[in-house]
């Protein structure tokens, strides 16, 4: 089977829909031309906690073009979809500042916005609490952490091991609130035809939005259709139904015409889910040669009062390195803030910043090279479960990356290399992300014209998933790519995994593979003759996934950073990043490289720039746009060298695919922080590495 795959899989195929995208032919959720389209503008709360006393809708309704004002008093009642975040306009409670409290619907976007801007709402304001602290009185132990991991783990006697260790590190690290800002803002257009609902949504999972809409509006599955053939980024913030699709569907029902709701960039800062701030403490005990004896990783995070979301911040620490004893914990405070949700590598990303920074501190304390320290603590099997790793290429990645960055030339004395006014240095950190697959269904069709069609509710959020699936499907059909069509982003194709958890391509490819095998079997049965109506097969990977062997499946990588620090101003530049990953079979080296480069760039952005600042008095962020919330600009990004080592892993899934969407961001920030220390002798433990932290640090 695998030998026949080498035709398209592994080739650097240019993305199939590229031309359609750059010519504007590819339609996004807010671009479908529909007759009688109305526009909804979201009104957000201006208090962080309390009750809505009154909404004066009359003045708004009198404004030109305004069709309706939806509030908790008149909005359609919604069923329970298991996600309180989208149970919008159902009661008078305000849980956080920026919550959607009304929707103005008008015949033009301008009319909707003008009325929304001046809609008078009076509140009964109650005291709020939006600041996360390590000793917050409300801290509690959640039942599990995202998506279903144990909250706390303990092996051996970590306290005793720590006390007995000749070398110890005990440090606190923090990461701030970070915001999801995909290029395409969250948007949806909803159309009712009697009791049938069609939604054009910007989502990472049309099937999951479909499921939610059937529950919210109490509709049978075949009465709802969700389209999302093109999506302009998500990072996790479009991994579940978000307010636009729910509001658009409610409004379209009320006004009896199609309604489009697009969030403004500013509104996204409260309504799409963000990365929780974390306060972490790392205690590590080691022998003098750097052999780990104890690791204790404690994380404090926030959630909202609407919904519990507990990020799995310390989960990677459970299996990264060998150690005699370890403990990991998560504590949560429910604050009057929007619910934090997924953002590229939730858990691994902030958690590995702390762990990999602490290891750098340990390496220095032991006088062991940081690359060597990691190699020395390579575990023979997954330290948490005791299960063998399906594959683990961390050591190979570390060695290859060290070569590429010129690690041998690194000075071991911090602050000792200078180039003009710049102090220069190198840093390293490891990277990891789970390699999982989730059940998906797919339909494959052989048409009488000789073409093959794969229909699957996959999502291409800019990753190149459509192209990768085409490669896989074509190979399995033993057909050229030109002879196959892959249709995605339509809930009518049936349930499938979302584009999330770096599981999309792994999960969908599996379904594509089964579908192609079934179709070929059927074609064989009928001797290759395809009737006019075509031949159809339908597959579900649930059984195959349920029957998987018990092994530990993860991707690993090594990140290296070269930095320059102006010690007079604290400015940090990153001329070079090197990332080497062991991520199984790479279906498409071109789009894969883009994913890894994108992840590393986002990691650089996290290291140096990204930070939502909150004003506790208002319970609100003081930066709500891309002028105030900095992400890396082109000038901040130097050379990024992303590559992978050969890794054949038959135990992750039949195609040997590990996800690559998230691993690129894991470890980058620690590599940069460690390089800043090597360059300037300043250890920054609180992200972002702002110039004032380097200057006074």
């Amino acid at each position, binding site marked *: 089977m695998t030998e026949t795959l080498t035709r398209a899989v592994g080739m650097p195929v240019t993305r199939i829909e590229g031309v359609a995208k750059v010519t504007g032919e590819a339609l996004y959720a807010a671009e479908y031309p529909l007759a009688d389209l109305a526009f909804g503008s979201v009104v957000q709360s*201006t208090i962080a906690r309390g009750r809505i006393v009154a909404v004066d809708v009359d003045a708004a309704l009198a404004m030109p073009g305004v069709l309706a004002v939806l509030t908790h008093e008149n909005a359609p009642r919604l069923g329970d979809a298991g996600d309180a975040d989208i149970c919008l306009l159902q009661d008078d409670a305000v849980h956080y500042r920026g919550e959607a409290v009304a929707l103005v619907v008008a015949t033009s976007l*301008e009319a909707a*916005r*003008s009325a929304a*801007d001046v809609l008078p709402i009076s509140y009964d304001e109650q005291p709020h609490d939006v600041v996360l602290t390590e000793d917050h009185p409300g801290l509690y132990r959640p039942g599990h952490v995202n998506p279903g991991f144990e909250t706390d783990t303990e092996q051996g006697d970590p306290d005793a091991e720590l006390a007995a260790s000749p070398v110890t590190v005990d440090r606190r690290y923090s990461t701030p609130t970070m915001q999801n800002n995909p290029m395409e803002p969250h948007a949806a257009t909803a159309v009712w035809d009697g009791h049938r609902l069609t939604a054009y949504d910007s989502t990472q999972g049309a099937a999951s939005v479909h499921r939610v809409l059937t529950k919210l509006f109490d509709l049978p599955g075949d009465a709802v259709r969700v389209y999302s053939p093109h999506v302009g980024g998500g990072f996790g913030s479009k991994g579940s139904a978000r307010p636009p699709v729910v509001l658009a569907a409610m409004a379209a029902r009320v006004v009896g015409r199609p309604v489009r709701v697009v969030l403004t960039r500013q509104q996204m800062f409260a309504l799409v889910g963000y990365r929780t701030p974390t306060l972490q403490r790392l205690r590590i005990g080691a022998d003098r040669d750097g052999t780990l004896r104890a690791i204790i990783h404690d994380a404090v995070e926030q959630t909202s009062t609407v919904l519990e979301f507990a990020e799995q911040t310390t989960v990677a620490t459970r299996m990264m390195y060998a150690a005699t004893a370890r403990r990991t914990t998560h504590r949560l405070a429910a604050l009057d803030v929007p619910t934090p949700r997924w953002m590229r590598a939730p858990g691994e990303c902030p958690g590995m910043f702390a762990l990999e920074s602490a290891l750098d501190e340990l390496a220095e304390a032991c006088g062991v090279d940081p690359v060597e320290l990691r190699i020395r603590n390579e575990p023979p099997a997954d330290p948490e479960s005791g299960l063998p790793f399906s594959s683990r290429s961390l050591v190979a990645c570390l060695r290859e990356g060290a070569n590429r960055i010129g690690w041998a030339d690194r000075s071991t004395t911090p602050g000792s290399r200078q180039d003009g*006014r710049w102090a220069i240095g190198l840093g390293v950190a490891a990277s990891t992300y789970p390699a999982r697959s989730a059940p998906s269904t797919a339909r494959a069709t052989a048409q009488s014209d000789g073409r093959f069609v794969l229909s699957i509710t996959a999502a291409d959020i800019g990753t190149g998933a459509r192209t990768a699936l085409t490669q896989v499907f074509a190979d399995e059909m033993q057909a050229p790519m030109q002879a196959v069509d892959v249709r995605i982003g339509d809930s009518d194709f049936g349930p499938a995994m979302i584009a999330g958890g770096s599981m999309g391509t792994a999960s969908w490819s599996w379904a594509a593979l089964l579908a192609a095998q079934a179709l070929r079997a059927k074609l064989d049965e009928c001797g290759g003759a395809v009737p006019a109506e075509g031949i159809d097969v339908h597959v579900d990977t649930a059984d195959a996934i349920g029957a998987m062997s018990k092994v530990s499946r993860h991707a690993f990588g090594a990140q290296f950073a070269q930095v320059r620090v102006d010690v*007079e*101003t*604290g*400015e940090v*530049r990153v001329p070079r990043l090197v990332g080497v990953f062991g991520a199984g079979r790479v279906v498409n080296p071109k789009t894969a490289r883009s994913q890894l480069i994108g992840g590393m760039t986002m990691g650089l952005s996290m290291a*140096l*720039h990204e930070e939502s*600042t909150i*004003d506790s*008095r*208002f319970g*609100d962020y*003081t*930066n*709500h746009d891309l*002028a*105030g919330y*900095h992400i*890396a*600009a*082109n*000038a*901040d990004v130097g050379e990024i060298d992303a590559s992978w080592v050969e890794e054949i892993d038959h135990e992750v899934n039949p195609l040997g695919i590990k996800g690559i969407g998230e691993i690129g961001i894991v470890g980058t920030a620690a590599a940069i922080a460690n390089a800043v220390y090597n360059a300037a002798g300043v250890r920054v433990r609180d992200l972002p590495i*702002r*110039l*004032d932290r380097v*200057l*006074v640090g």
Partner: protein
Amino acid sequence: MREFEYAVAGDARAAIAAARGGARYLAGGTNLVDLMKLGVETPALVVDVSRLPFDSIEPTADGGLLIGAMASNSDVAAHPVVRQRYPVLARALLSGASGQLRNAATVGGNLLQRTRCGYFQDVTKPCNKRAPGSGCPARDGDHRNHAILGASKQCIATNPSDLAVALAALDAVVVIEDDAGPRRIPLSEFYRRPGERPDLETNLPPGALITGVELPALGVAARSTYRKVRDRASYAFAVISVAAALEVREGIVDDVRIALGGVAPLPWRARRAEAALARVPATEESFRVAAVLELDAAEPLRDNAFKVPLARNLITRVLLDLATASGATA
């Protein structure tokens, strides 16, 4: 965003006449339109002045340069005379915003751009500058980017313009026109300190049109530079910036101009530092002493105290670099 009327002015007189009664002039629109979208600016009438014929850059009779108010930031930065005789100006402009924005942004609009204080830009929050008397939440709130010099109890916002900092160092003059005819306001008198009225940012009479900026003939300006420290490598406002020009003769400071950005509600001409440098040896020590003297008056807040050492280091470094460069050519 509210509905508004839009008019295109045929000439300066017509623009001024049309603007009577509180209209806003629209030049590149890169600041005004953003603020209108945010609801911070709500003009009933917008008068488009971008096509008025004030976009040339020409020498003046006394050897200076007259830059039209509608000249784009890009055109000014690329102008050969500006680059050669006033490099600080070209560098200041090029350090601002992005290429696309600089193509649209004009000189007049740049001088009148509003502060980037987050509370000012958010109409759901109090702000003395936007809503006089409502309070200044920045003082006890998010003020890392706010002023350490020249602020008041009422407002601590900084002026965000890089251009204005260079013009302050160059002793530029703003040329304006209103019903009373054309007039000239030295840049040093153009901006106001916030005092009790942070809503009043300039001494430009209501309805007046900026037609140009005049640069004096200034020998020292040829040996000038601009250095901007910001939170990312480009496309960010200054945390601190320094515009400086320095003439050194036989190791002694002969002429020096220093202006600072990111520290005050207005471009901050560092007169104390300049005075301290008059006829002293051009050494790192002198530069540092002068910088410290200038910053003596600083009143940092909880989260922006780092600006004091940062400004000191940057002033010292910029002057040292200029001295080194002029030493190399001497």
